[in-house]
């Protein structure tokens, strides 16, 4: 908006009430951005704030015509923001104001409560001041009294010079009135101006309005005398300052007054126009226009639709074009969502905003996806059907089957705890393989250590968003050895967010640890409570029935391995884990291979029960201890079954 050309320093009357303000304004006009930046002028209404900043603008341009001076009221600024947002032209708006050399903003008191405007202003101020451009503002109150303004903005408003303009004194009022009457080329009888100045008008605008009335009266009745002034103005003595809007200029409306004001003619005109408009508005253009406005508001390019609107008559296929546009936007959105799972940073790409570039967007996504590696999946070697069920692991296995049948529905999360070698990893991967079967769902199956390593790598590369997105893209998350996150705060935080994402999205989580959540030390309570929120199932050391089944399976191919007596003997021997049992199997296989004979109970006993040991002593451990004392497995604490569980029990 243009600065009012009549607002100049040479027609601005300086008095004691505004001397400082004028001096500061002149200094600013002489070197914009050099001194007092920002300059904040405040004072009551009608005291010349707008005139003063207008004078700054005019003076600055006069001195340096190449300067880009922008004058507008805050309300206009707000409207422009809204308009820019409505048509999706915010960028252009920012660019436009970024080029302003001197920004003159009127009526800053309207900032109260306008959060968006405040943040926009803050950004603009930073940009302008950062490059040494001048800002001048006016308000009817000092910055500190404008309520509900962002602290940061407030500090910027007050950061330069704050000056006030007071009500003019009698002498100043006389000077103002003389100036105005000269400007209007009217002459008053001696004493009229003084009489007018004596009246208690606190605002210059009101004073001017009063003078205008005198001018009008004088043009009708001939020269006024000072005695007539009060009568003409309808005042007796002191004038209160009522809340009326004085006319700043002798607009025609003020001269003409009401003029009937019936409004009938006006309304009949409006209804007439309405009929004409309704007949002229083309429904198809309205539809296209609506679509343009809507998608523009959503941030999509609508050039193709705008071209459509340029057609003189409704194109026969315009509905199809609109539908096609909607489809294209939908596809763009899907592509954008897809790529966001890989790298959220790519989601904001310009290419997803223009339906005309759909193919480009698709290619872009494909390229990005090709470069992205999903999190590790389950290992195919661990199959569900090779996992033997028995009383010792029944609960965990049943839970696993439930999870496979209804992922995310029943036990979420499923937490499997059991000592090492009891088949946790097998079960975990088996769940993963079943869930991922036939590409039903994307399963992330990782060890906690890998999760930690990847997180650290992501943090190093600043790719944390990408890290999260990779995991979030999965339909199920299976984590092995989750106890490793203990004590690692950052990992736990990340796991917490990932966990919440999966849980709230109804996606299955399976966690595996050597101990139940409550026994993991260094695990944050928020994670512990979440881990315990589903089902905690224990995998225990294999019982006799399971041992017999397992020996039967593993020794099935070994000569003599199907001997029931042998299997009975072996099944009697307790083992702490399946892994230990498999160790036994390997030793027996070695015996068969070296001796070349079929396996018998005796051979097995000979191998597994070292000479010298009491035949009744249960040869439990693979770790053969030399000292007899240690052969009693109850004495060796790490051989106790479920040691931690028992310790915890003791501690309680």
């Amino acid at each position: 908006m243009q600065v009012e050309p009549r607002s100049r320093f040479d027609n601005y009357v300086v008095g004691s009430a505004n001397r400082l303000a004028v001096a500061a304004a002149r200094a600013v006009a002489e070197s914009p951005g050099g001194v007092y930046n920002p300059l904040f002028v405040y004072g009551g209404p009608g005291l010349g704030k707008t005139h003063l900043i207008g004078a700054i603008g005019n003076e600055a341009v006069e001195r340096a015509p190449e300067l880009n001076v922008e004058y507008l009221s805050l309300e206009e600024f707000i409207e422009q923001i809204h308009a820019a947002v409505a048509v999706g032209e915010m960028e252009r708006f920012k660019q436009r104001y970024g080029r302003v050399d001197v920004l003159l903003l009127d009526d800053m008191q309207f900032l109260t409560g306008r959060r968006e405007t405040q943040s926009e202003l803050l950004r603009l101020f930073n940009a302008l001041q950062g490059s040494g451009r001048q800002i001048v503002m006016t308000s009817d109150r000092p910055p500190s009294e404008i309520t509900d303004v962002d602290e940061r903005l407030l500090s910027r408003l007050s950061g330069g010079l704050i000056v006030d303009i007071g009500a003019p004194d009698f002498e100043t009022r006389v000077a103002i009135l003389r100036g105005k009457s000269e400007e209007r080329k009217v002459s008053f009888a001696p004493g009229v101006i003084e009489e007018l100045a004596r009246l208690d008008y606190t605002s210059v605008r009101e004073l001017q309005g009063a003078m205008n009335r005198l001018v009008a009266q004088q043009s009708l009745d001939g020269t006024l005398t000072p005695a007539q002034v009060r009568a003409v103005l309808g005042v007796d003595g002191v004038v209160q300052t009522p809340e009326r809007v004085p006319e700043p200029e002798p607009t025609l409306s003020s001269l003409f007054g009401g003029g009937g004001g019936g409004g009938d003619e006006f309304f009949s005109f409006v209804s007439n126009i309405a009929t004409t408009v309704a007949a002229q508005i083309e429904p198809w253009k309205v539809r296209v226009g609506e679509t343009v406005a809507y998608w523009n508001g959503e941030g999509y390019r609508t050039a193709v639709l705008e071209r459509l609107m340029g057609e003189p008559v409704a194109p026969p296929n315009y509905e199809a074009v609109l539908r096609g546009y909607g489809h294209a936007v939908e596809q763009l959105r899907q592509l954008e969502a897809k790529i966001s799972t890989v790298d959220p940073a790519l989601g904001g790409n310009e290419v997803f905003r223009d339906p005309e570039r759909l193919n480009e967007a698709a290619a872009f996504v494909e390229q990005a996806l090709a470069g992205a590696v999903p999190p590790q999946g389950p290992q195919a070697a661990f199959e569900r059907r090779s996992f033997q069920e028995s009383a010792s692991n029944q609960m965990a296995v049943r839970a696993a089957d439930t999870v496979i049948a209804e992922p995310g529905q029943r036990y979420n999360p499923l937490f499997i705890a059991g000592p090492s070698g009891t088949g946790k990893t097998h079960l975990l991967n088996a769940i993963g393989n079943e869930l991922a079967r036939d590409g039903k769902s994307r399963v992330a199956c990782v060890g906690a250590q890998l999760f930690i390593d990847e997180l650290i790598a992501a943090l190093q590369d600043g790719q944390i968003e990408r890290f999260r997105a990779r995991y979030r893209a999965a339909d199920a998350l299976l984590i092995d050895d989750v106890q490793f996150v203990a004590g690692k705060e950052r990992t736990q935080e990340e796991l917490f967010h990932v966990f919440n994402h999966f849980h709230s999205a109804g996606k299955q989580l399976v966690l595996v640890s050597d101990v139940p959540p409550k026994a993991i030390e260094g695990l944050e309570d928020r994670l512990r409570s979440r881990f315990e929120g589903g089902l905690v199932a224990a995998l225990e050391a294999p019982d006799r029935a399971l041992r017999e089944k397992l020996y039967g399976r593993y020794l099935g191919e070994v000569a003599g391995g199907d001997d029931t007596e042998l299997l009975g003997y072996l099944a009697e021997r307790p083992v702490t884990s399946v892994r230990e049992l498999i160790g036994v199997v390997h030793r027996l296989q070695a015996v068969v291979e070296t001796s070349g004979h079929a396996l018998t109970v005796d051979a097995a006993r000979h191998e597994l029960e070292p000479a010298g040991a009491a035949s009744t002593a249960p040869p439990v451990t693979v770790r053969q201890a030399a000292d007899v004392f240690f052969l009693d497995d109850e004495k060796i604490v790490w051989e106790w079954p479920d040691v931690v569980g028992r310790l915890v029990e003791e501690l309680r």
Partner: protein
Amino acid sequence: MSLVNYATREITCKIVYYGPGRSGKTSNLHYIYGQVPEDRKGKMVSLATQTDRTLFFDFLPLDLGTISGFTTKFQLYTVPGQVYYQTTRKLVLQGADGVVFVADSQARQLDENIESFQDLHANLAEQGVDPRTMPLVVQYNKQDLPKGLILPVAELSDAINFRDVPEFAADALHGPGVFETLRGISEIVLRRLSAAGSQPATAGSK
């Protein structure tokens, strides 16, 4: 500036009251302004710029509210009639969607009327607008004056309205004919929307 903006759902219509000095253009605007109900009154503005001489024109924004879903705004302007305000006249005429030619019905003003009407055509042509495509109505104002002073409508029509555009007799000071004129020009302007098609609906908007 396009007359109908389907994207922002706005109709903006700029109508310029043209005519010789003292023919009653401002009176037209004032009568209209007086008829606008208080709650919908915008401010009528007389804009002025200051160089060594003062240039004036009147501006009356008319907010007609929402019509068929479109925010409809009329902007009424008057040009200064005096011959020496040529620059201002051209300025105001820019981007006009329609023109009301206000003629002074007084017999002794006939030459001024004709001169101003020619001036209008010359100015439009200068802005690259074919005057024949510009929506135009003629108003014969001051029909309330004594019959001895004015020319009858038929005679005025013969002298001025060679293009045979819609014409209205009016008494702008008291109202008769004012809204009829405005309605007349508005309808031509609005009708032109569809007739004009893809052609720019505004003058000088190239």
